[in-house]
Every structure is written in C-alpha cells, then in structure tokens.
C-alpha cells in the first residue's frame, strides 16, 4: 500500500543528491539496504515521530504494541512555549489477544475517543507501526470515521518501521502534513511578511534565540514546523509568502510540494553559525520583497545583520586566546558539517575531521573549499576507529550526537552534544557564542588531566607512582608505564580515507 508513496519520495526532484543520480540509481531509492547485525539508527516510524511530535498541542497516538512508544517517549529536547500535551504519551499498547483476534481497529477508535474526551486536543495524529501495518489495520478508515464522529481532525501517519530509515520517516511525516493538515485552516490575518520555517525543531528552545530578530524586522513566523508549533499554525502554513528549510534533507518534499501547490518559494538555510544566520535573514528578506513586502525590508535586514555580527564577533573574540589551535572533530553531518566548521575556524579552531554523512553534494563541496583537504571529510566511522583516533589524542574534542558520546568518554576525551538530546541552544548569533563557550568549558575542565594521568598502581597492584612516606619515586619505571604501552599497541595508525565507507557513524542528526 505504501510503496507508490515511498517510490515517489525517492524521485524527489527537490533533492540535490537525487538529481545527481542516473535513472537506475534513482529507482533504487535513497535508503541503503541495511546489514543485519551491523546496522545503526532509527526506523521510519522513529523519523516520522521526530518530525511531528514537537507540534505541541496535538495528541500523538502510537498504534502499536508497547515497544514503539513505551521505550521511546519523552526523550527529545524540543521546547514548547505553551501546550504540553505533546509530552504526554499515548499508545494502544496492543496485547497478544488484540493481535490474534484482530481487535486493533476497534481499540484504535476507542483510544482516539478516550483521548478526545479527556484532553480535547485540536487534532490527533495516529502513527502506524510495523505490527499494525502487518495485521492490516485500516488506519485511514478509522481516522476518517473518527474525524466525522468526533469532530476533531484525526490524521493518519503511515511510516511503519520496516519501510526504511529514519530519514525516510521524516519525509513520510511531511507527506502526512501535506495530505491532511496544511491548507485546512484559513487564517484571517494574512500578511505580506509571513514566512514558514521547515525542519526547525526548537531543541533546547534555540529557535527563541532567532525569533526576536524576525520580530524586530516585522517578519511573522506563520508556522515553524515542527518546533513549538500549534496545529492551527501548521494548518495555516499555506498562507505564508516564503519558506526557509532548515534541516536540509528532512522535509524537502514538503517544501517542494508547498511551492507547487501554493507557489510558496523556498530556500535552504541554516541558523548554525554567524555567516549562515546572516545569509538566512538576507534570503528571507529578498524572497519576501520579491513577493510584495516593503522594499526597505532589505535595508533594515542588513542593518540588523551588521549590528548582530559585530556583537557576535566581539563576543567570540574573547575565546580566541583560549581556543586558538584546538583541534575539533565534527561527527554530525548535514549542513552542520560545514556551517559549524566555518564558524569555529573563524576564531582559529582547527577542524581535524568532519562527517559528511547525510550531506548533499553542495554541502560536501563547501566542506572541501573550507577545509582545503578532502581527507578531512569522512562518510561515517566505525566506533572502534573513532575510539582509536580519540585515544591517540588526534583531536582535542569531539562534537557529535549522544550515540557516540561514550566512545569519546571511554577514550577519556572531551565531548560535546550538538544533536537532539543536548541541553544548550546553539542557533543564531548568540547560539554560536554559546557553542564556543561550551567547547571552552568542556576542553578546559580539570578532569581531563586527572583521568588521563597514569594510575600510580600497575596491573598487579604494585605502587609505581611517587612514594608517600619513603619519599622519591618507587622502583617501577614510570616513564614507560605498561598501560600506555598497551594503549599504543591497541591503537593502530589511522587515516580517514581508509575507513571512509566503514559504516556505523552517527545517525542521530536532524
């Protein structure tokens, strides 16, 4: 049932990666076949939920046995300025009897009714999963029926886990919005400076660091999807004049279809990094003026950019003496592979490597120009190789997502979370300063010296460190500690190129 939709997504004309492929490669689709026993990352359902769940006033109901929702709820750091219903977890928690007796559809309808009666949400999103797809529950029919009976939009989201990767799930979520939500509400306050932001998740509330800039310029965010969104904002998104797409691969299909259907032009941009934030503001102003906003918007935008850049630069300069020459390993991908890199390089930080997994060819080209050395680009790195690199102190800090956190920590090296579980906002001008501040705090923490100093006791428990009572060094030769020799042996020499295609990287970006 799903395959025509999935196939259509693989033919996405808005996708740079896709356009670069020939006919045959395109038909194969963009999800690489997974290797059993050597796969990492989430499924399509995971991806769909990530994109839709931050819509704060909607009840998100997962039609599945326990694991899909029970093992994963309340685990992401998107922030809400109002409704908290999105953090309440709803699942049909199918039992064996439900599956065997085919009671799924009935249970689903009752669950929707209970939610509507108890919480009165503006809409309910129903997520299909592997088991409910396999037993053939007609979720569309149940949702239609519930919408009619209960008078509340009930939106089916078709993204069973087995159809593909997290990224495919992101796109399927976009399809659900375009099919069932966007364009279903006509706001009475449409303006010439209304924009949409797609793929901004408001992690740690970071969009709130950018929004005041728009407010100052008189630009209204009609819908930020999904970060801190309300259902009616999303339903009215078709009335905006321009769209900015933030997380480049997640919602490309949505941006393109909105352009087709409602002639809303879009561009890809990023709020990570000083230059990128300025660029984004500039492009938005340009698109709006082209579509009838007052021409002085461009001049006013340039003034704000000049002012904010100067402030950010002076704030960043403070960190230069402490961070100049420090070596950073970026293991994230997408736009962050270059946008964060360029900002860090501005204050003299060296980038020893950056992951270009999930980056578009354009992203990769920018990385190449920026780093002037393509060997510093890697697709993804096996945990063992990442560990080796860090254990040899070939970088001073790794910036990545939570999945690879303990690789750095077990190698006794600083690490900073720049993906979805982080607690610090990094968007916009102030966000960049915050990121640099956090790098400074992480690198200069005194624990690194302490945990990296050799233990005063060897493997047999003999004291090899400085004596406490007798004075002087003990008999064990400290200079060639057996521990460090063992480490040398365990950690082979390493080149980025060699492992360029070795798979398990950080799939947590977005």
């Amino acid at each position, binding site marked *: 049932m799903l*395959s025509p939709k999935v196939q259509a997504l693989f033919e996405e004309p808005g996708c740079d990666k896709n356009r670069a492929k020939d006919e045959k490669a395109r038909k194969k689709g963009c999800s690489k*076949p*997974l*290797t*059993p*026993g*050597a*796969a990492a*990352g*989430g*499924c*399509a359902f*995971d991806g769909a939920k990530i994109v839709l769940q931050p819509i704060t006033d909607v009840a998100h109901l997962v039609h599945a*046995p*326990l*694991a899909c*929702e*029970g*093992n*994963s*709820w309340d*685990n992401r750091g998107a922030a809400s300025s109002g409704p908290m219903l999105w*953090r*309440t*977890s*709803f*699942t*049909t*928690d199918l039992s*064996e009897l439900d*599956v065997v007796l085919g009671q799924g559809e009935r*249970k689903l309808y*009752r*669950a*929707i*009714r*209970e939610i509507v009666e108890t919480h009165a949400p503006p809409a309910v999103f129903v997520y299909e999963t*592997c*088991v409910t797809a*396999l037993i053939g529950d007609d979720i569309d029919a149940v949702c239609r029926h519930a919408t009619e009976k209960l008078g509340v939009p009930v939106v089916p989201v078709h993204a069973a*886990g*087995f*159809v*593909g990767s997290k990224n495919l799930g992101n796109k399927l979520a976009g399809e659900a919005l375009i099919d069932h939500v966007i364009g279903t509400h006509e706001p009475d306050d449409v303006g010439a400076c209304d924009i949409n932001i797609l793929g901004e998740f408001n992690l740690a509330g970071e969009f709130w660091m950018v929004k005041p800039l728009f407010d100052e310029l008189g630009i209204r965010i009609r819908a930020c999807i999904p970060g801190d969104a309300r259902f009616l904002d999303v339903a009215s998104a078709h009335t905006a004049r321009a769209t900015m797409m933030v997380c480049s691969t997640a919602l490309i299909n949505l941006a393109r279809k909105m352009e087709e259907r409602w002639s809303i032009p879009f561009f890809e941009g990023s709020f990570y990094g000083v230059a990128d934030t300025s660029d984004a503001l500039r492009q938005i102003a340009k698109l709006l003026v082209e579509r009838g906003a007052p021409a002085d918007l461009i001049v006013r935008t340039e003034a704000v950019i000049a002012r904010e850049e100067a402030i950010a630069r002076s704030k960043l300069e403070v960190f230069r003496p402490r961070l100049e020459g420090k070596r950073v390993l970026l293991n994230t991908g997408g736009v962050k592979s270059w946008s964060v890199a360029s900002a860090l390089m501005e204050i003299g930080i060296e980038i020893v490597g950056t992951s270009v997994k999930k980056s578009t060819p354009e992203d990769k080209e920018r990385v190449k120009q920026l780093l002037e050395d393509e060997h510093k680009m890697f697709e993804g790195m096996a*945990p*063992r190789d990442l*560990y*080796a690199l860090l*254990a040899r102190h070939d970088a001073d800090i790794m910036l990545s997502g*939570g999945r690879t*956190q*303990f*690789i750095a920590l*077990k190698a*006794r090296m600083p690490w900073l979370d720049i993906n979805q579980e982080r607690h610090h906002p990094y968007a916009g001008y102030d966000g960049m300063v915050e990121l640099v501040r956090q790098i400074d705090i992480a690198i200069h923490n005194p624990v690194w010296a302490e*945990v990296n100093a050799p233990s005063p006791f060897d493997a047999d428990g003999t004291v090899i460190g400085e004596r406490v009572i007798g004075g002087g060094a003990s008999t064990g030769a400290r200079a060639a500690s057996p*521990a460090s020799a063992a*480490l040398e042996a*365990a*950690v082979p020499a390493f080149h980025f190129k060699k492992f360029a295609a070795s798979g398990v990287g950080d799939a947590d970006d977005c």
Partner: protein
Amino acid sequence: MAHVLHSEKAVSTNPLKSSQPLGAAFAFLGVAGCVPLFHGSQGCTSFALVLFVRHFKETIPLQTTAMDEVATIMGGADHLEEAILNLKSRTKPELIGVCTTALVETRGEDFAGDLALIKARRAEALAGTEVVLAATPDFSGSIEEGWSKAVVAMIDGITARVSPRRNPRRVAVLPGFDMTVADIEEIRETIEAFGLEPTILPDVSGALDGTVPGKWIPTTYGGTTVEEIRSLGECVHCLAIGENQRTAAEKLAEVADVPYSLFASLTGLKPFDRFVTALAELSGRPVPAKLRRQRSQLADALLDGHFHFGGKKIAIAAEPDQLFRLATFFVGLGAEVTAAVTTTQGSAILEKVPADEVRVGDLGLFEELAVGADLLVTHSHGRQASERLAIPLYRVGFPIFDRLGAQHRRQVGWRGTRDLIFDVANVFQSDLHEPTPEGLNPFRRRENDHDSRPSPEPRRH
C-alpha cells in the same frame, strides 16, 4: 491480600512498562562477551539502545536483524542468519542472545527451528560462540518477564545437562532485573563472607558498573562467563531472588538437579535475616560479626527512620516483584501504600502486595490514583506526574535517565535497607512545609474532610 484489577481503557497514557525484549537484552548484558540481538526492524533496537544508554551512561552492545518490508513478507530466517554470522565475525562474542520482537512474532515463524538449522549449518563458523533464543514479543509481558525468559533460555541452552561433581562451596544466585550493580555487589560480599563462591546469573555488576576499560570492546566486558553458566550444575544450591526468578530456578533444577530457595525480597530486616540464615546453613558457618553489626545498624536506622515514614501515603508504580519489595518496605515502616500500579497481571506475588488493590496500568492511571499521596515511587517517567501533582518523586527501577548513579544505589541487604531508609527519609525532610497560622487553624482544617480522617489502622499481613 490485594485485589488485582486490570485496566479497561483502550489507550495507554504515559506507559509504565518497558518492553519484553528490552528485559531480555538487559539480562544478556549481564553475561561477559555477549551481544544481544533483536530480531525485528532496526527501530526496535534503536529505541531500546537509546533507553539503555540514557539509564546506564555506558556504551551498550545491542544489534538488530534489520527486518525490512521484503523480509517481513518473505520471512526473516535469512536476516537472522546473516546477523549472527556478521556479529560473530565482527565482534567475536562468547554469546549472542537473540530476542524476538512483536514484528517477527506477529508474522509467526519457527525461530527455534530456524536457529537450530543455522547452528547446524554454520557449526564451523560459529564455533566458540553460544547462541540462545528468548521468545519475547512486545505485545505481551514486560521488562521483568523478558529478563526471566532470557535467564531460562541461557540455562536451557548452555548449562551442562550431565550433572558434574557438586562443589560444596558453590552457590547459584538468580537476581531480578531491578538489582543494581551495588545490590549485586552487596549480595556477593555477603555470600563470600561465609566462604561460599557465588555464581550470579546475570551479573550486571561486572558489565554495567561504569569502568573505563582502556581499549575499545564491541561486546559486554564483564559479568557471568559462559563457562560459569555451563557449569552451574556444580552448585549445591540455588538462591532465586524475586518470584519472577522461580521459572529460571525450576529450569536449573530440571536441567542439573540443583535445589533452590526463593526469596521474594532482600530489602528489610526480616527478609535479609532469612537470606543470611540460608547462607549460614549452606556453609555450616556462624554469621560473621561484621554482618551482625550491619544488622544492628539497620535496627537503629529503622528506629531513627520510622518517625518520617509513619502515617505517610505512598504511591508506587513498578514491576510486580519490585512493587512487592517496595510496598512491604514502606508498610514495614508504618507508611500506607495508597496507590499500587503494576505492568502485567500474571505474577503470583501481586496478591501479596500490602495494599487494598493493585491496578495493572500506566502512569496516567498512577497520576489519578496518586492524588493526595506524600511520595511517588517509580522510574524517571514519573517526573511529569510529580511536577503536575507537586508531590516528590523517589526514582527506582528502570529507566532512570535524569539522575546520575542509579546503578550504584543499594537497596538490598541490611546495609542497602539502611541506605534506602535514609534516602527516602531525606526526601521527606527536604519537602517539609513550615507551619503557618492558616495551615493549623482548627476551623479551616475542619472543612477539609480528608485531613480529618483518623490515622490508618495498622496493617496485618
């Protein structure tokens, strides 16, 4: 005796449960050189992995057979085989613990048969690696049952059936999933104090105790060894902790004729008295002075602590064994369990929980029942209820992702009970409200009828 009531609701609001395959993987993680393998779509593994990492703050080896749409329709045996072979060549594990998921169980294949065929066909490639199977669909059971199924699978699949010579000093211990690293260490120390040699299965204290190993290891690095599981038949006796471990203990009795004793809880003075008595009998030695001193310390802690517990209303949401253990603890100090919510219906221990009723349900139900309680006791997902009800939350069990050191907190044994009393009493003490004239005004208090109730009758169980 508690009445056990099942929920009639169609929607589960804020689930209390973690899934059954996660529980099985949890048990496999307590075996040295092991990689648990989920037979399902990659999301099943990814969600469980992330939850484990959030709880333990450790790298967790956990793999997936990565079932896709085609395999779901055509059958997953090939994926299972390829995953096992890939894991074998990439990580060289001692043990691969296969946990099935709802996806493959809904499809319904003969996994045991498939696995036997794979093992026979690939005997050479798989030499030196045990592969066991736990059938753990997400649509039944929960973490506690998954744990138990994995332990049964390991005993059934690995323990030698020919009973070897008994070692009079060796005892088997089967702990529950809610025993922390510190709990296991406490049990081991106590047993060793009698000159006995415990084999603990699973033993998360070696694998998930947060050490820095000095090199990259793709499997678990610590825990029960496969050789120890194989030779479990040498044990003179088996000590099973928690009703949920009964099936595993019976399996060991069946496979290797090892007799067992069951201890429903090791938290509290009397429950641990019973455990220590068993050890004294097994070893033929008197109880060491060091231990008796711990007992005396606990007696004192009970005396000091009871002021803070007496008359308190406690709301607990936990897996069956854990619920029983905590409820008896609180009631034993004079508190009342006003809300008891659990995950599944099947356990015989539920009827013994000292509360009027035990409800099978979710944290949504828990939040309704907990109104008016003095303390919430559940895992970290109870934080939303705690905020909304403005009642302090004491975090227990799994997952605890918003506090550090969950695995190093001790709740069993005389010392562990002492720690628990102090921990909880300190929560009460930090939540004290200063007396105010309005709060104590006798006329105002008269209007609030729930405040003028007589203090609860002492319970007899």
